[in-house]
């Protein structure tokens, strides 16, 4: 199963012997830095994997990236999973783009999925490129923030200053301006790459959000992974509101701050991952770029807690306009 090389030990079980469809699928998942339990998109991917395990009975294996690692280390991780006999490998995060591209070429019998990348690097006949329209989802929560803000002043906290997070910011701002063109939006990033500690430093998230609340903002949206916890704490202390990200954080965040999370921008990595495995189990491998946007329900806003019930109709209206292409949401702020 190992492509060109005959001498690198071949995979333990090839895909040739596919007799029993369900038990035969083995899914290996390579997380980005943070891994399972990061309360962010790695966790979302993990949820999809767990569901696949429960519903489809697939065998699973997980491995997470190490901070600052080499490109070769990522390639090695994917290859290790292939070598260990996993027939489907999911790579979480755009950092894996090149390595998925290479591994897919080297192992044509194995199917890959990559989250957050649709570039040529990772393209392949056996690759499912999963991307999301984070800007569209963020547009909706931006609109919600603007509708809810009494001070006409809202904020955005980004974990690390990367194009992906800028996409969240762009949609958020666009949504807010759509409601109120004169609204004030503060933006703040916690760290600059390659310092990715901004996704894991709640103290910094708290400080940044506090600054916004004290400057007069009353709703703050975060796309800062684990640092988001600090944003919630700040919101609670300031009597303001916060918007969660990736999953429905009103359900997953610590109980004492759930009440301040008025909504979350849900990025359904779990659904996408499950789709990939499910399709495989059904014998129809998913390949090519699969965009999860508002239209396909890949991104959305959450309603847990009922805080946005009063503006739900307005938000759904925007949603429809985006789906219909009446509104095009920008990807850079």
């Amino acid at each position, binding site marked *: 199963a190992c492509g060109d090389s005959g001498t690198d030990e071949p995979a333990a079980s090839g895909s040739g012997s596919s007799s029993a469809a369900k038990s035969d699928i083995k899914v290996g998942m390579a997380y980005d830095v*943070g*891994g*399972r*339990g*990061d*309360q962010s998109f790695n*966790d979302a991917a993990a949820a999809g994997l767990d569901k696949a395990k429960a519903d489809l009975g697939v065998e699973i294996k997980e491995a*997470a990236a190490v*901070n600052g690692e080499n490109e070769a280390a990522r390639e090695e991780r994917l290859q290790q999973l292939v070598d260990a006999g996993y027939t489907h490998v999911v790579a979480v995060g755009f950092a894996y783009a090149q390595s998925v591209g290479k591994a897919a070429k080297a192992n044509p019998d194995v199917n890959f999925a990559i989250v957050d990348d649709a570039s040529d690097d990772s393209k392949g006949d056996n690759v499912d490129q999963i991307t999301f329209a984070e800007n569209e989802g963020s547009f909706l929560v931006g609109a919600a923030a603007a509708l809810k803000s009494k001070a006409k002043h809202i904020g955005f906290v980004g974990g690390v*200053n990367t194009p992906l997070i800028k996409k969240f910011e762009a949609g958020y701002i666009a949504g807010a301006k759509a409601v109120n063109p004169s609204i004030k939006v*503060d*933006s*703040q*990033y*916690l*760290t*600059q790459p390659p*310092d*990715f*500690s901004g996704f*894991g*430093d*709640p*103290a*910094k998230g*708290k*400080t*940044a959000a*506090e*600054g*916004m609340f*004290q*400057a007069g903002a009353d709703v703050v949206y975060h796309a800062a992974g*684990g640092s988001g*916890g*600090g944003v919630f*704490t700040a919101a609670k*202390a300031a009597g303001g509101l916060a918007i969660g990200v990736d999953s429905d954080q009103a359900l*997953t965040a*610590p*109980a*004492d701050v759930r009440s301040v999370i008025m909504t979350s921008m849900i990025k359904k990595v779990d659904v996408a991952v499950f789709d990939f495995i499910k399709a495989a189990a059904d014998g129809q491998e998913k390949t090519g770029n699969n965009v999860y946007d508002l239209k396909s329900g890949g991104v959305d806003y959450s309603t847990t807690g009922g805080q946005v019930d009063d503006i739900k109709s307005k938000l759904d209206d925007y949603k429809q306009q985006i789906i219909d292409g009446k509104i095009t949401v920008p990807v850079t702020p």
Partner: protein
Amino acid sequence: MSAAGLEVGTTTVTGRPKHKRRYGPREWAVIAIGVLAVIAILRVATGANDIASSGALAAAIGLAVPIGLAGLGGLWSERAGVVNIGLEGMMILGTWGAGFFGYHMGPWAGVLGAIAMGMIGGLIHAVATVTFGVDHIVSGVAINIIGLGVAKYLAARFFTGLPGGGPTQSPQVKELPSFTLPGVSPALGDLEKKHWFFVSDLAAVLRAVCTNLSVLTIIAILLFVATWWILWRSAFGLRLRSVGESPVAAESLGVNVLRYKFLAVLISGGLAGLGGGFLALVAASIYRDGQTGGRGYIGLAAMIFGNWRPGGLLTGAALFGYTDAVQLRGGATVHAFLLLFAVLLIAVGIWQIVRNHRTVQGVLAIVVGVLVGWWYLAADAVPAELTGTTPYVTTLLVLAFASQRLRMPAADGQIYRKGEGH
């Protein structure tokens, strides 16, 4: 190679040391008022109100405490002559300890857990450097590697599967109590909002120190006072310092040098661990991978900045915490700092030329100052990518202008072996 490092550049003062002017409480008060006045002027001149808001100052305190505690750890160890570059690793161990014990046994157990884990780091450093005479830097580097490994490894092993926990983070830990001076805080808040020159700034400072202070912050401040008292006012402290200044002399007077060094490094680890504990318990209520973000190194820098003294260290930590807070809170503050830098650089340049007759350095400072001033006027804001560097640039600038009079303990970084000194 030895941890003591090269001395070049650090001894520009020729001749015998003059008797240093001792700063009493009155001098310190004048300096404090002066600093506050400068900030007030800057705030009024630039309109960046967050420069002296109680929120920014409170955030500064929160960010300064872990750095200060790490630095205090460094102070204890270096005063006894052991360079501790392993503070970062000890802090990391502390964050894990706080997360683990804090979750299972409550926040106060978390505090103790943080201290205990830090002390384990200190113990390793002490055994290596004091017992085996390993180079202090080597040992410190090794501890940083091990600390990181142990915390991540243990987190993955023990936090996975707990509610809200995972390989990279602990479940939520209950909060430690915090205190607000009743009645005073709101009144000061009103005063602060008036944005009066100096008065409002003073109100902001007072409000920041009497509003919503975590008990751990108070403990940290007490630890500073206690450190000062123990090291400079008690017999134990005298012995400990003597061991860092001249271990041979101390041993000749019956002081058990190795024991004091050992103890100091152990305490150092405990303090650094507590610094990590603060991050996990107060700043975040959670253990997270990579939470320390190099604060151990910054603590070390703050200690050197503070000339191996608690007061100086406190200033260094506060400076760092403050600049970090204002940049994280965004807005126009960092931009306003450009004006301050410009004025300071030009002033220093003029001083160098007029008083010290150092024309080249003076002109250089003025040129850089003018450039920074031009930047202030030309741009509305500093690019977000650069604002994050504010604390580092500030620290570097301050050191560049004020580090020549620093003096570390005379035997700092030297390996001491019992009886070999005679």
